[in-house]
């Protein structure tokens, strides 16, 4: 097991914790050790392990901490993605371990880190329209649609002034994954709990916007509404 994996495991099982703190001389990263019932362990091997970990990750943890203070929303995701891409690319570390070690994600599955790397790779010059997306939707979109479609969604959101939030995100997924035109996308949408309580006009707008965002201008609202009401 490589050292990153080993330490990520310890974090995942709650044996150690990474603390970021303001010291009189700047930001510091310390490690709480919860192995056993104590929060303290300073055997030479543990010190060695902690020192190795900190020499490897301290700078990156502080860098991400600074990014967090400076940015939010999609910009924050982009910057974290940039750091992750830069770091993970050359190191023997997975998205999940990176997330655990730098406290980027709430779990170690790495999805979040991977999504943020996608944002950075798809929009290397920050060509996204932050006013139409929040961090979680664009993160999810990077995995819902292909790169070309996401770029399309980004420009169409701006062109049609559509704010992409959860309902439209789900509708995009349904439209994107429908292989039988609009009727299939409506059918998928109607199966969603999220849309059960929406009235037909609202749902029509959501599905229609999804088509527009994906660049499908061939559908009409009336066609969608009829399919909903059938």
């Amino acid at each position, binding site marked *: 097991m490589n050292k990153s994996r080993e330490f990520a495991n310890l974090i995942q099982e709650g044996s150690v914790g990474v603390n970021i703190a303001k010291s009189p001389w700047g930001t510091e990263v310390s490690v709480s050790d919860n192995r056993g019932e104590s929060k303290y362990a300073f055997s030479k091997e543990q010190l060695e392990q902690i020192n190795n970990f*900190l020499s490897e990750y301290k700078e990156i943890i502080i860098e991400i901490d600074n990014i967090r203070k400076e940015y939010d929303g999609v910009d924050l995701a982009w910057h974290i993605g940039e750091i992750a891409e830069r770091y993970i690319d050359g190191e023997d570390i997975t998205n999940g371990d990176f997330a655990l070690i730098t406290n980027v994600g709430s779990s170690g599955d790495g999805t979040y880190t991977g999504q943020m790397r996608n944002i950075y790779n798809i929009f290397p010059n920050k060509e996204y329209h932050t006013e139409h997306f929040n961090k979680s939707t664009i993160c999810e979109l990077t995995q819902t649609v292909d790169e070309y479609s996401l770029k399309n969604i980004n420009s169409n959101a701006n062109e049609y002034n559509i704010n992409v939030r959860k309902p439209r995100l789900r509708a995009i997924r349904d439209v994107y994954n429908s292989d039988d035109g609009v009727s299939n996308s409506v059918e998928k949408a109607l199966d969603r709990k999220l849309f059960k309580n929406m009235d037909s006009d609202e749902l029509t707008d959501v599905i229609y916007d999804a088509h527009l965002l994906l660049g499908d201008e061939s559908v009409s609202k009336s066609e969608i509404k009829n399919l909903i009401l059938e």
Partner: protein
Amino acid sequence: MNRTKSKQKFDNEAKVNTANSIKRIRSDYNQPWVGLLRETIQNSTDGVGFNRLQGNLPNEQDLTIEFIVDTVEKELMIRDNAGGMDFDTFHNNLLAIDNPSDDKADGNGAGSYGRGFWVIMSCGEWAELETNHTTGVFASSVNIEGMYDTIQTLDEPSLGSGDKGTCYRIHGVRDDDMSYLSDWDTIEPTLVENFAPLLNDDSVNIEYTIDGETHTPEAPDLNKLRQEYALCEESELEPFTYHGEEHKVLDFTMIDATKMDDEPPWTGVMLFKGNDYLGYPFMKVDWYEPRGIPSTKNPTKMFGWCDASDICRPRKDGTTLENNAHDDIQLSRTGTKTNIQSKVYDVHDAFFKDNYTTEEKTELLNAVQNNVNSLLGTTDAFDTFSKSTRSGTGTGPSPSSPPSVTSLSFLRCKTDKYNVEVGEDISLGIEVNPQNTLDYDMYEISNIQVRNKTEDEIVYEVPSIITELVENEPLEQIIDIFTCDEMGKYVFSAEISGYIDGEENIETKDTSKTTFIVGEFEDASTKDESDKNSEGSVEFISEVSPFTNPDGGKAFIQPISDGEGLRLNVNTAWPAFVNAKETLRGDAFEQKQEKLFTDWGVDAVIDHWVTEKLQDLGASKEILDFNEKRIKTTDDLEKKKVMNNE
């Protein structure tokens, strides 16, 4: 009258009080009943080897040693088939004191002083003796005063079984010895610990009968343990030189106790020695119990043994390093000198060094927390850091007249421990932190004393120390190592004042005191107060976390969210810590950490408190910056001192 040695006759011999000599021999043994077991088995083992060599016994003959205890008659019969003694040996060596046979004196046997028989005898009032040798059967009776009957030559043995061997029947066995000798649960582990290799020998039988019930000691099979669970087997350890002669430990073995089905037979490392006949070390001569190696205790994860025969061999000057009782090698710090300690550390590092046990970690953290919290608990200035929700781990009462923060930092009495065992050493130290301006060039630290508060008596005092102080250059000095002989609550205190030669009554600048507890002592007043204060008692440090930054300070405080107290972040790249890590191991490293973190914790909490206070008071940015600079400067100075080995 001028006398010369050549003119003297020396024709009278100094009188020896035999009874007193026997008493002293007995007193050489911490536990004479163990001495009886050891000397008996050792004599029989030496005897069988010697007699085989002399052709008095066939080489293939097994050795049987029988102990028969009769608690009603207060008798102990000891019998072996080791070939017995001829008349001269019986008369001149066995029944003599400090007059071993040539063979034993030459170091061929495990015994060598001619005293063993008398410790056996000293467990009773008198004894019948009989030895059946190829040259005849000889018998006598001997008493505890060292008097014996004229030796008789018998036609046939009356005490023994008929085998060639020796038999003692001890009458009037002392009650204290009998209580042990009649308890198989005590005897068996004693035999195992002292003679495990011998008990592994199929040609040696030891039978122990107590009031008609016969037992046989069962020792773990050391060869099997070695084959299956050995962590380390070294044919010889690095030699050491003692008074110009080289010695070395041989056949060093450490066993992984975690893989064994049975409990380990002992802890630590058993040092066995042999004789020239058996070809293997069979008898314990010392025991090395590592103090600072976690895997050797609580629980025992590894244990071991080695051959110390070379250490016990007679030296060129005729002395030996083992004591009269053959149960101690007379070296101070035997484990260290013989290089056993170093090897055990290596094995620990290779196989078990992962973690301290939970118990050890908790103990260490508690010690640091207690020390820091105790030191800071002497002032009410830090009430805002109190953690009110937890109980029982507070530092107890605040004194009636708390010193100010300033005085706390100018003179500090320090100890390296908060709790010590009776008989344990504690280090007493003084720290002086001169401030920006000093009223005097020289200062006198006086009334340096340790008071046993429980007995209300001063138990230790040292003369005043006169020293020059330089502004902003802290002074730290270990005063002494104090051994705590009595249980109780102790206060180590001192005071400091300016010093001008010839002037008296200079105002005291500061006083300091620190408390430590010796033994399992519970101070009633503290307990009551502590209980009363359990809600809202002062607790500062609830977590200690390392960080590493060669350019950073030594420690800083970070409040833990949700009011869970304070986290003490400690810099493991700080020179003093790095130095300790490189030079110390086990207990010593642990104690050093505790001392460093306690000192750092106190400073860090004070720095944190001052910063918070300044912020609360709406201090300007300049003042806050200045405060940070002050903290950094203090750290820098301290670091410089460590780097310069000051």
